[in-house]
């Protein structure tokens, strides 16, 4: 789908922002504090170089404040670099914020014209596309109502409809894929796929790594104002998630003006591989409404172990959930169970030792371990919560822990659904068998 014609070239670009500690906006302050401007520089990008070819779909990922959006704004000429150069060839449509420039007093129809003009469409072009835009937005009778009476969802629908009606050669998108309801989102993604099929260069900034993985040919991972890694989506996303979750568990994700000195890619990546690939999440002391039970058996610690890294699991790879528990009072005929939920609380799977006919568990006071082991963890990419529980035969919970651990699943295939059904394809060779 891509050829080698470069459409965006970023050469050794650096960009600093002045963070005004006290703004000297007025004349008095300018005179009084002349030459003592109270600001410090925040490095948003430092010596970044990259090229993007025609027809490529590129995902920019990275934690908040890593410079992704700054890079996108430089490409769309909203910001200018302090050093280096950015050259962009072709008609650019940048969707940095949906509905920027909507006028609340005018009707949806009038705003289509005004917004279209902002995106560089002529009145004639908008006229030919008007029906298509209104149709796409599904706003129906509301199109002639003032935009101020719209719900935020309707507002987004209208804005996206105008934005994608532009037939750009390059489209820059910042975190706007989450528009409208699920059906409309799917429609938006389809429209982007259509644009991609037409050799449109697409650059997306998003935190939705699953979408990036499905949609992009290449991923650029920004970290601490620099390109930390670029290449195949699967490799970058895996390395990115591993780093982010590790940092989050260490509590070192705090934003700072200062960029860490040791941001050489190799060091951290190595560290991740050397660590034990396990997560310990939450102390027992953290009681909440997500936890209840008699307390006869207390779950002390949960470890998720996989081949990929902390909290990360590759679809189809082995996974082990180890529960360490402490028996306070001798218990008879109890069971241990786990449940796996999507972030929107849909249960994907749940089982326990009783359902699995593991056998009667009777325990005396003391500490012990039990492990749930899967040789083929088949849920598809996304974030999942894991519940763990220990219950008595009469279903009375000894310790029930909702959302005890979160895991991230990624995949190198783009199959869809909730889980990967173990399967293989067989093509009967008619030449020989018939």
């Amino acid at each position, binding site marked *: 789908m891509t050829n080698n014609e470069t459409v965006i070239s970023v050469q050794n670009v650096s960009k600093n*922002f*002045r963070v005004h500690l006290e703004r000297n*906006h*007025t*004349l008095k302050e*300018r005179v009084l504090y002349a030459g003592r401007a109270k600001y410090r520089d925040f490095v948003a990008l430092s010596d970044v170089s990259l090229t993007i070819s025609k027809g490529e779909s590129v995902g920019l990922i990275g934690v908040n404040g890593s410079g992704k959006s700054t890079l996108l*704004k430089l490409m*769309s*000429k*909203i*910001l*200018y670099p302090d050093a280096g150069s950015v050259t962009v060839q072709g008609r*650019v449509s*940048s969707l*940095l*914020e949906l509905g*920027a*420039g909507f*006028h609340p*007093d*005018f009707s949806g129809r009038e705003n289509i*014209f*005004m917004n279209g*003009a*902002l*995106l*560089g*469409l*002529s*009145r004639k072009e908008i006229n030919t596309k008007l029906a298509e835009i209104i149709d796409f937005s599904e706003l129906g009778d509301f199109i002639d109502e003032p935009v101020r009476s719209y719900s935020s969802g309707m507002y987004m629908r209208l804005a996206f409809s105008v934005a994608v009606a532009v037939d750009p050669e390059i489209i820059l998108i910042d975190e706007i894929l989450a528009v409208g309801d699920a059906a409309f989102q799917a429609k938006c993604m389809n429209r982007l796929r259509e644009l991609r099929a037409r050799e449109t260069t697409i650059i997306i900034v998003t935190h939705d790594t699953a979408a990036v993985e499905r949609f992009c040919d290449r991923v650029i991972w920004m970290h601490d104002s620099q390109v930390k890694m670029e290449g195949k989506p699967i490799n970058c996303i895996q390395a990115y998630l591993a780093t982010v979750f590790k940092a989050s568990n260490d509590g070192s994700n705090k934003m700072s003006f200062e960029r860490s000195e040791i941001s050489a890619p190799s060091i951290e990546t190595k560290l991740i591989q050397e660590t034990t690939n396990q997560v310990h999440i939450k102390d027992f002391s953290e009681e909440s409404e997500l936890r209840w039970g008699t307390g006869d058996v207390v779950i002390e610690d949960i470890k998720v172990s996989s081949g990929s890294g902390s909290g990360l699991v590759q679809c189809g790879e082995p996974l082990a959930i180890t529960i360490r528990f402490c028996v306070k009072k001798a218990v008879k005929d109890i069971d241990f169970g786990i449940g796996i939920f999507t972030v929107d609380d849909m249960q994907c799977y749940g089982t326990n030792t009783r359902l699995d006919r593991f056998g009667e568990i009777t325990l005396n006071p003391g500490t012990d371990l039990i492990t749930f082991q899967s040789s083929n963890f088949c849920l598809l990419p996304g974030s999942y919560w894991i519940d763990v529980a220990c219950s008595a035969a009469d279903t009375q919970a000894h310790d029930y822990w909702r959302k005890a651990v979160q895991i991230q699943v990624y995949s190198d295939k783009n199959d869809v659904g909730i889980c990967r059904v173990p399967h293989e394809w067989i093509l009967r060779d008619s030449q020989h068998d018939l």
Partner: protein
Amino acid sequence: MVFGRIGEVWKYREMLWSMILSELRTRYRGSVLGFLWTFINPLLTLLVYTFIFSKIMKVTMPHYSLFMFIGLLAWNLFATGVQASASVIVRQGSLVKKIYFPREILPLSVVGGSVINYLFSLVILVPFLLISGYQPTIYWLFVPLILLLETIFTVGLSLMLSSLTVYLRDIEHMLGIFLMLWFYLTPVVYSTTMLSPNIAQLFKLNPMSDVVLSFQSALYYNESPHWKLFVYGLVISIVVLIFGWWLFGLLNRRFAEEV
């Protein structure tokens, strides 16, 4: 550099036009009389001045309210254009931060709106000229030229002030007083014949004097504008425009960070 910028603005002429239209349409939106205010405003102004100066103050100058109205319309174009464009980039900060377009569009659309408002007010001025006993003359043809001169000057100053205001917000507040002073240094409410000749010469250095005097020549005195005055005004205006645009080009690089 300036010519490259003009090319870029030309590419976005649709947006410029749409901004001018929405500027004009939002101005009186929500009021009962709506767009009619565009005409009612100058009409009422005219009635007030006629009443004060011919019934109360008994100014001896013939058709004084007409004399003043001609100058006032020209002045209003300039003053409202400059005043509104000074703050336009800060006001439209959300656009500046989110969308690329040549930033010149913003002050240009404000001045464009003022020019169109001036054209609408001609709907009041022309009948008033006829009622006062004036016949259309060949000199009326100078009006578009003088208007062009005034537009060039206003655009130049607007580009300068709008970009400076982003970095120095005081300008917006100082401008009101400054424009009031400028108004009295421009022969709108008085004629230069009332001044001593030396001072009158000095006053002509002010490009707005040249604009107002030229309008008065063409419409009030029925004569062609003094060409020396006109050429001087044009040269100053073009210099201001080029300098303004150059300054704007320089300052516009950090707009998105500063607004």
